[in-house]
């Protein structure tokens, strides 16, 4: 890969002295427009649900990490970590340390990564990683403006760029260079809606057709409104423990095989190649190396499909399709449930919904549910290894995790 090189000390040398980490509890709230519920309501539901699922007690919890992109813009509330600890009953008597983590739409994935590192290092034993966003207390214009802050405000935003606009430019060049079609982009949305129909928490539980996508209003050419993920309220939580004691709490701990993160330029125009997310490529390389696995070993993946083109780029950059072939692979059904590599069984950001700070945690909840064999009608049979891929902005942050059923 020209322009980027692997750090030779990354990550094996450090990891060998670290403890293995397991996930022992999970919970998503319903995703959607939750007019009657506040941020604190939904986080408490997710947090308490995950704690109950794990069987730990509040007094066992050593730390709380919460992914939240923009409480300040969406509900005029900062200091989200303290707020959540308080309303989860972890503050006044227990004084559990709580840290908010922010990396735009990758906030949830990064909160999980901080939680893993805290347990792996031995600093903490039981840690809760949560993610939440309450987006519908403001109008959609204000929400879009808050989301646009994930790009370069001064050198993209001030030129009139919107998020759909940036991904539209990725799509335009991908189509020009590789022959990807609008129909292939639409197939991503069709598949993810089909999966969303099977997920009880999904925002959209109705099937759509390629024509529905192509006939929906144009947001930024070539992206239609049905190529875009929605504005969503939702919260998700996980409970983590050192692998050696995980069986004390659950018969089906799911193990973390890799946690990896990479950065790229904040502005899309400064990237080496606009149709490749080098942050994804680099984080994937680090994750595969840490897990000693290859793309062919992964049984299912939750990727960051904030726009349909983003899923196509993601499956290419993660090594599940050759560069430029993401559209064809999708069209052929290889990413559907029952296909070669099921992608976004939860319905993805497109159909399950995209409460930005919660998304990275929700992806992990989906993979854990699948690896436990609890995914019901959307179950990927015999899944051993699952992956999550969470992106901030147009690709300035990528966070990847690999999970397994066996330690």
């Amino acid at each position: 890969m020209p322009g980027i090189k692997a750090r030779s000390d990354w990550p094996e040398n450090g990891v060998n002295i670290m403890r293995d980490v397991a996930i022992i509890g999970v919970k998503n709230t319903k995703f959607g427009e939750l007019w009657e519920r506040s941020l604190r309501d939904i986080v408490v539901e997710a947090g308490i649900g995950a704690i109950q699922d794990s069987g730990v007690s509040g007094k066992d919890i050593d730390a709380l990490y919460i992914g939240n992109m923009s409480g300040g813009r969406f509900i005029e509330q900062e200091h989200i970590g303290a707020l959540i600890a308080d309303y989860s009953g972890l503050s006044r008597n227990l004084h559990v340390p709580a840290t908010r983590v922010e990396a735009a739409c990758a906030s949830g994935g990064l909160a999980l990564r901080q939680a893993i590192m805290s347990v792996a290092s031995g600093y903490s034993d039981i840690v809760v990683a949560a993610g939440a966003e309450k987006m519908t207390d403001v109008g959609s214009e204000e929400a879009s403006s808050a989301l646009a802050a994930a790009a370069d405000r001064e050198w993209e935003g001030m030129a009139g760029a919107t998020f759909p606009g940036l991904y539209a430019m990725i799509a335009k060049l991908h189509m020009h260079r590789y022959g990807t079609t609008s129909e292939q982009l639409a197939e991503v949305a069709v598949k993810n809606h089909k999966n969303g129909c099977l997920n009880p928490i999904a925002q959209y539980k109705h099937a759509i057709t390629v024509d529905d996508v192509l006939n929906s209003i144009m947001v930024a050419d070539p992206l239609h409104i049905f190529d875009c993920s929605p504005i969503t309220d939702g919260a998700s939580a996980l409970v983590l423990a050192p692998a050696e004691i995980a069986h004390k709490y659950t018969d089906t701990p799911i193990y973390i095989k890799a946690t990896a993160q990479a950065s790229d330029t904040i502005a899309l125009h400064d990237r080496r190649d606009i149709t490749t997310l080098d942050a994804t490529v680099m984080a994937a390389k680090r994750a595969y190396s840490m897990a000693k696995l290859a793309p062919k070993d992964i049984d299912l993946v939750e990727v960051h499909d904030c726009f349909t083109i983003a899923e196509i780029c993601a499956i290419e950059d993660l090594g599940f399709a050759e560069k430029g072939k993401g559209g064809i692979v999708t069209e052929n059904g290889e990413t559907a449930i029952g296909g070669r590599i099921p992608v976004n069984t939860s319905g993805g950001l497109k159909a399950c919904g995209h409460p930005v700070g919660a998304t990275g945690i929700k992806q992990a909840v989906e993979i854990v549910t699948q690896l436990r064999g609890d995914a019901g009608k959307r179950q990927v049979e015999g899944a051993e290894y699952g992956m999550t891929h969470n992106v901030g902005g147009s690709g300035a942050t990528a966070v990847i995790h690999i999970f397994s059923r066996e330690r």
Partner: protein
Amino acid sequence: MSSVPRFWRNIGVRYNLEGTRCKECGEYFYPPRNVCVNCRRMGELEPYKFKGTGEIVSYTLIHTPAEGFEGQAPYALAIIKLDEGPRLTSQVIGDIDKIQIGTRVKSVFRKLGEDGERGMIYYGTKFVPVDA
């Protein structure tokens, strides 16, 4: 953006395409950077005024506008590669039906946007297609 100093401090950059060039490795930067991405602390940056010519790397027609650009939709937004090397994001105006990936463009001074009816009006650089 509702902040006069935030805009004012970059007037030269926005009006006149002023950037920087690293004397050590020769790479040009727009907007200007204080640290060269190749040479980092070993680099030495000097001011450079771009010629304002380049070509379209990719583009889109924005139908749902950004805040402050409501009156302008639909508008063409593009990533433009300046002839000196760096790329930037800008609107392309003029005969936008004709623009394609690879279209040659040059910079022009135009109004960018405004903070509502009574707020600041922002000026800066946009691009127009030029005949090859």
